[in-house]
């Protein structure tokens, strides 16, 4: 047995996959709209609803459009599989959701300790939330110099394929 540590290589975590639809092309880049994953049949039906309106799912998905260079010969309407590393996804979730929430809870607790009033507590919580979002902007600016999370085009998606 002459096994060295270099024999064992860490296995890369599989990518978190999502499905997006090609909606247009812009200067050679594909404009992609992510498909909403449905957690159950009801959510799936809502995700397939095409009705547009303020706050509707179709309108929210249209806001999430992004461009990506593709090496494939794609056409408008094609569905593609995209992958992103779990680490960058969790990092993004943690920054966007946890920072503002912690700011809000901390501010609410401080206001309760200082003034013991529900109205002051609510005001402080909202102010803490706003401050948290400002922190997110700061973190985003700090991360701008680093390599950000990048999507990997994995290929065309099958007709029954959804995000996982």
């Amino acid at each position, binding site marked *: 047995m002459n096994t060295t540590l270099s024999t064992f290589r860490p296995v890369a975590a599989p990518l978190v996959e999502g499905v997006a639809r090609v909606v247009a092309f812009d200067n050679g880049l594909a404009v992609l709209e992510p498909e909403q994953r449905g957690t*159950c049949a009801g959510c799936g039906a809502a995700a397939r609803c095409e009705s547009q309106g303020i*706050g509707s799912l179709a309108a929210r998905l249209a806001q999430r459009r992004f461009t990506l260079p593709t090496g494939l010969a794609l056409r408008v309407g094609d569905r593609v599989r*995209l992958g992103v590393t779990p680490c960058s996804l969790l990092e993004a979730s943690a920054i966007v959701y946890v920072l503002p929430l912690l700011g809000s809870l901390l501010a609410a607790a401080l206001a309760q300790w200082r003034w013991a009033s529900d109205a002051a507590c609510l005001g402080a919580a909202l102010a803490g939330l706003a401050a948290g979002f400002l922190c997110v902007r700061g973190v985003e600016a700090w991360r701008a110099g680093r390599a950000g999370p990048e999507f990997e085009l994995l290929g065309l998606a099958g007709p029954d394929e959804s995000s996982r």
Partner: protein
Amino acid sequence: MREYLLMMLGAALVNNVILARFLGLCSFMGVTTRIDTSLGMGFATTFVITVSSMIDWAVEAWLLEPLELGYLRTVTFIMVIAAAVQFTEMVIRKVSPTLFRTLGIYLPLITTNCAVLGVALLLVEGRMGFLASVLFAFASSVGYSLVMVIFAGLRERLALTQAPLLIEGPPLGFITASILALAFMGFSGIST
């Protein structure tokens, strides 16, 4: 302080949103195929439940209760939750387009998650102050996320086993969930 801690422990473990109150079962079964996506869903749901509970508390205390509009509670809370989700998405898009884009491909439907509405309605039953309400909502959603991640871990292992064809897939998931619920009943002695 001790009261708050016991209340949070009770909300997260003893009266767990999923395993004791049976709320949010669709996302519990639908998103828990991988630990990382479950954790991402947990972060997002925790944020939405906590923020919408803040607004719901204000609407209940300063609008619905004084004007005796209790019969409009459910529809009002649904509107508040939808508005909170929409507003959050707009803010995130503004402050961090890169992160918004990254989350875009996998974000599930949180607005229709009944756990969000369920927690808001539980707050009304509890008749608590603002901070207690927010901490209760936060702890409930942390309990939700905890169970999601534990269940996702179990399902990742179950995917590698050879289960009998009769119970393969969702039936095996439900059996595992019931055993997990029994395990969580062990916390019932801690606090109520």
